[in-house]
């Protein structure tokens, strides 16, 4: 190489940031105790230390298996995950105090369960990093993953409502008290499949086109896949009664398509199709009802949550949405302080509405910091997509990062009344194992891809081709193959 550059792994920066993140989690815990017990108990730091040890474990795995991975991803996610656990524990403490029960142990109740789920998720992420040394291997199983993704996505829709329905949305498989959300895992499988499919098809999708109004539109017959996915997502909307999931799958496909072809026309087609579909579903819901009725109701609540009629309705009223909005409003600019608010008033504050509960306590100031952290996570994912050398990796990383961002948008938009509310989990924050595990697997994939992206070209060749081969000689000219 003509220029010699010091390649830094930046693992120590990651460790430092991780320690900082855990300090924040401990500070959150201490403030909660000061507000709830009127004293800071000597063992306030234990939850933060426990979760810190877990992240330290993953950090060590990253150090050995993906030494060039992005230094920011892990600490940023660790902060959000840690705050999530601390906030759930805060809710447990408040409930125990209200019921005159003893303070829950570190492994008890929702907060403790979330800690256990975090442990499991981190083990899964570490296993993925250990087993998957090269992200391109996934492309071999692309069609299998695509099938698995569609099956996972459709299972809740075909199961009877008694098994799969929670709060009107059919997204679950329930076994007694235990339930999983297969859709969370379907995302990962579908991203891999879309990326593989589009790497193979992008030439035809981006070349053959009609020019109209200065934008290149694809030919009718090339619209097949996008229309298929659109129909699928509308089926999800109607049968799983969940706008957020439909938006997630469809947005994911359209954006991967856009990234693969560099054609903005796909975005326009996607937006028009989606909003058209949603509007038709709304109209159908208002006239014939049936499977569209649920979506119509949700849209009505979104349009006017404060109306007497919507607030006092028997079922499916806007009580939750209004409580969330009031919580955010009570928090104001700087919040009531961790542990000083009353997030318990918001229904589902542990899962869907955790941002409303947290927002009351940390205020707009704190909430926007958390949102910036999400933004940075997504940005690092997109950066990995830009920097990685193979097209499959680019599409997977871009798709995964975008999914994460879109999911935060869907739930936060729902809570704040920007879009109709749908029951999405807030990544890394909400209580729930499926979401946490799937999202940590997503982060493990991004770490793997960013490792490939930042790894110097020579060391990549060494790693992938085993013993170091002599550079190919082309008639006296030295060549270096960057792309394996």
């Amino acid at each position, binding site marked *: 190489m003509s220029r010699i550059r010091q390649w830094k792994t930046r693992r120590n920066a990651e460790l430092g940031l991780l320690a900082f993140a855990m300090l924040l989690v401990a500070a959150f815990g201490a403030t909660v105790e000061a507000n709830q017990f009127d004293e800071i108990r000597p063992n306030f730091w234990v939850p933060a230390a426990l979760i810190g040890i877990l992240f330290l474990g993953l950090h060590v795995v990253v150090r050995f298996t993906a030494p060039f991975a992005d230094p920011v991803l892990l600490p940023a996610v660790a902060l959000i995950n840690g705050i999530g656990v601390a906030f759930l524990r805060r809710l447990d403490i408040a409930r125990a105090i209200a019921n005159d029960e003893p303070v829950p142990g570190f492994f008890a109740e929702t907060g403790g369960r979330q800690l256990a789920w975090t442990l499991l998720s981190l083990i899964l992420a570490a296993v993925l990093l250990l087993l998957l040394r090269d992200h391109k291997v996934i492309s071999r199983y692309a069609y299998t993953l695509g099938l698995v993704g569609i099956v996972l996505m459709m299972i809740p829709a075909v199961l009877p409502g008694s098994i799969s329905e929670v709060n009107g949305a059919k997204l679950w498989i329930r076994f007694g008290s235990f339930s999983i959300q297969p859709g969370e895992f379907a995302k990962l499988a579908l991203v891999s499949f879309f990326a593989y499919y589009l790497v193979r098809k*992008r030439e035809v999708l981006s070349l053959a086109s009609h020019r109209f109004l200065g934008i290149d539109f694809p030919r009718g017959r090339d619209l097949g896949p996008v229309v298929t996915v659109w129909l699928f997502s509308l089926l999800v909307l109607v049968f799983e009664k969940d706008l957020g999931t439909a938006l997630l799958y469809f947005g994911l496909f359209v954006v991967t398509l856009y990234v693969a072809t*560099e054609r903005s026309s796909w975005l326009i087609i996607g937006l028009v199709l989606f909003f058209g579909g949603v509007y038709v579903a709304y109209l159908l819901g208002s006239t014939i009802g049936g499977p569209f009725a649920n979506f119509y109701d949700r849209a009505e609540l979104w349009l006017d949550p404060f109306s007497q009629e919507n607030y006092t309705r028997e079922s499916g009223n806007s009580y939750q949405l209004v409580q969330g909005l009031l919580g955010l409003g009570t928090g104001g600019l700087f919040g009531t302080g961790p542990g000083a608010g009353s997030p318990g008033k918001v229904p589902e504050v542990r899962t869907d509405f955790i941002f409303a509960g947290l927002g009351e306590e940390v205020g707009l100031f704190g909430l926007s910091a958390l949102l910036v952290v999400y933004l940075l996570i997504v940005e690092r994912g997109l950066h990995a997509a*830009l920097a990685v050398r193979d097209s499959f990796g680019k599409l997977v990383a871009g798709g995964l990062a975008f999914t994460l961002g879109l999911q935060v948008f869907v739930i936060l938009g729902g809570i704040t009344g920007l879009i109709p509310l749908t029951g999405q989990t807030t990544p890394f924050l909400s209580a729930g194992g499926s979401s946490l595990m799937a999202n940590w697997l997503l982060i493990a994939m991004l770490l793997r891809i960013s490792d490939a992206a930042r790894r110097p070209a020579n060391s990549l060749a060494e790693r992938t081709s085993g013993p170091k081969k002599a550079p190919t000689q082309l008639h006296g000219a030295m*060549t270096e193959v960057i792309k394996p």
Partner: protein
Amino acid sequence: MPEFVLTVARFGFLILLWIFVFTVVGVIRRDLFAGGRSKSIVASPRGVGGAVLQGRPAKAKRGKAARQLVVTAGQLAGTRITLGEAPITIGRAEDSTLVITDDFASARHARLVPRDGQWFVEDLGSTNGTYLDRGKVSGPTPVPLGVPIRIGRTSLELRP
């Protein structure tokens, strides 16, 4: 707990949170120039390659000697040839310096020749022609740094 301590804890947490955000941004800033090799999110599909590379000629630096020939698109994408004094022949023929297996390339397609530190591209009577950026190469043409030379589906450029 005195009100004062609670207020300090409340604002202290928020300030720490933002310090964390800015520390992360600082780490990213120092990291910004590492690893970002390709500008386009996906290597450009053939044929529309110009769309991505178009912007380059304006930025092409003059006065710097070319040291490398880099294949930016096509089957050999990523291949680098360190330039010396010898001319470089490109084509499907086995004895070319750069052997490209491209259906649209001729056996002896084009040649890159250095003259007084400047490289010239010359078409060797190929069937489908050689293009420098958008223009067809008819005679020996000087090649600025970073401007794509297109042969069939393959794109090459000179790099310092």
